[in-house]
């Protein structure tokens, strides 16, 4: 059986890639993709931990299902906001959105 560590390393790497995407990308859509990657990394963690440690309950599975639905809702709200902003400003580049300062 694949040791748990592998899953954890995979999840941590995915999380780090997602975090890099959030911090380094300027396009809001790319940032959102980074966030989705982070959430999916957590899903891997949850399922791996459930498989290897759980005390007989399906918490990990149930949680992963909720995370998936929450991520979808988040993506929907996010894309809707992006469209609204794009119509006003013709950009969703986070560095060009600087109407407020201080």
């Amino acid at each position, binding site marked *: 059986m694949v040791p748990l560590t592998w899953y954890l390393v995979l999840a941590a790497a995915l999380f780090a890639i997602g*975090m890099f995407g*959030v911090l380094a990308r300027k396009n*809001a859509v790319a940032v959102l993709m980074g966030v989705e990657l982070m959430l999916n990394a957590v899903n891997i963690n949850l399922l791996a931990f459930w498989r290897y440690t759980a005390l007989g309950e399906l918490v990990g599975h149930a949680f992963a299902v909720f995370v998936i639905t929450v991520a979808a809702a988040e993506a929907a709200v996010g894309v809707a906001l992006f469209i*609204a902003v794009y119509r006003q400003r013709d950009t969703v580049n*986070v560095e060009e959105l600087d109407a407020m300062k201080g």
Partner: protein
Amino acid sequence: MTFPTLNFPVIAPQIVLVAAALIILLADLMVANKRILGWISLIAVIGALAAVFVCRSDSAAFPLALGGPSGPGTMALADGLGLFASAAVLIAAGLAILLAIERVGDFSRFEKPGSEKKQARSGDHPIAEAPGPQVTDRAGAYYALLLLATAGMTAMATASDLMTIFIALEIFSLALYILVGFNRRDLRSGEAALKYFLLGAFASGFFLYGIALIYAATGTTSLEAILHNIQPMSISLPFRPLLPVGMGLLLVGFGFKLALVPFHMWTPDAYQGAPTPVTAFMSVATKAAAFAALIRVLAAVASYDRPWLLALAALAVLTMTLGNLAALRQTSLKRMLAYSSIAHAGYLLIGLAAGNQLGVEGALYYLLAYTFMNLGAFAVLLAVQRRDENDVTGDRILGLAGRQPLLAALMAVLMFSLAGIPPLAGFFGKLYVFSGAVEAGLAWLAIVGVLNSALGAYYYLRVTILMFMAEPAESDQEISSGKVETLQPGWAVMTTVVLAVLGTIVLGLWQWPWTQTIAQAVSTLALR
């Protein structure tokens, strides 16, 4: 196979709120007069508040359990803490709805874009349904989202499982993202929503990773079971070392949601860009819900251990100081209050950093006081804000006392309370929190807090001076030249301000029932 048992009193407030939100969405399709929807939502909030008090009258806690009463499967717990924070959230929601009832049209109406842009909206709340030929009014969606956010916040306040905490957090966050970007005529509203959304979603990632690690370390997500499993000699936990890592990540997530420095970057922009009633609501209600959850999580996962308390103390110092320093140099009053609410999160955190009975009691008292005074301050801003604007600068309140003496006097009370001048609620909140810190041996933290209060008093009093000291001749001239028109605030806005001021004064002068309720609420928690 364990069967879920539902204890309806525990989730009665949420049922009322969600049902009302759905009814409003459907009614929005049929009703042309959107003000009715506002009244429906206000009734729903009052109904939910009544449900909270029904829970309260029965002394036993009602657990919402999956398998067994108050066992490890408990998902939500209507104990004193949860009911108290729920009540604070519902009060904030009720005042925010009353605040918006006359002014919602300022930001919910917009001209329908050209034909090729017609179907701009998306998500579950598309635009559309034009009552007139051109103007679209999304007031119904506004009230529905506000109720859903409230349902999420009350759920977070009563949640006793990391899973429910996360879902509740997302429910209210998603609703708030849309509410912040509700004003389609203001460029800054959309920008604020975008920033709030991206950073909020980023924070959810950390929050969730923290939960996953805590789940790994303890084998469960139920706070009660976590508390049980991490006792020494309980069960073998091979991944126990992951617990502090998970708690740290969870704290980062909470930091974003509570706008603690250094996770506060979104706060000023989101608060400034959001429609003012939304700012008023989210600045207080989010804190009540998230602080209640944080108090629970700290008790279960971190057991209020010394290192965690010191970390909280460090966060509190940073949050207070940077919040106050940034607030000093703002010209927009809305942005100033945004930074000031960051500073107040710092004061609240002092109570948690103390980690003892007195500190947490003080934090809860402060939360209720803060709900009234901060919401009231934003309500005053809305009262002086022009209908086509979404911001208030200092010159708009210049000489306000001459034009609207009552409003200026009420604002002065709120400013004094925020500054912490006795005998108002803000003063006692700070007093309790600081004495909690002293009792816990963190006298230095209390001293930093007092110094910060002095710093804060400077800009609150500056607002008061602006209102009372300015030469009325000049403003008369400006009125006649049309530069400043005397805007009469509607009765609903005035009622909100009066209620908030009453709350601030009553909470300060007549403390006994509140402090007793809070003491009962805190006594069931596992503090140091």
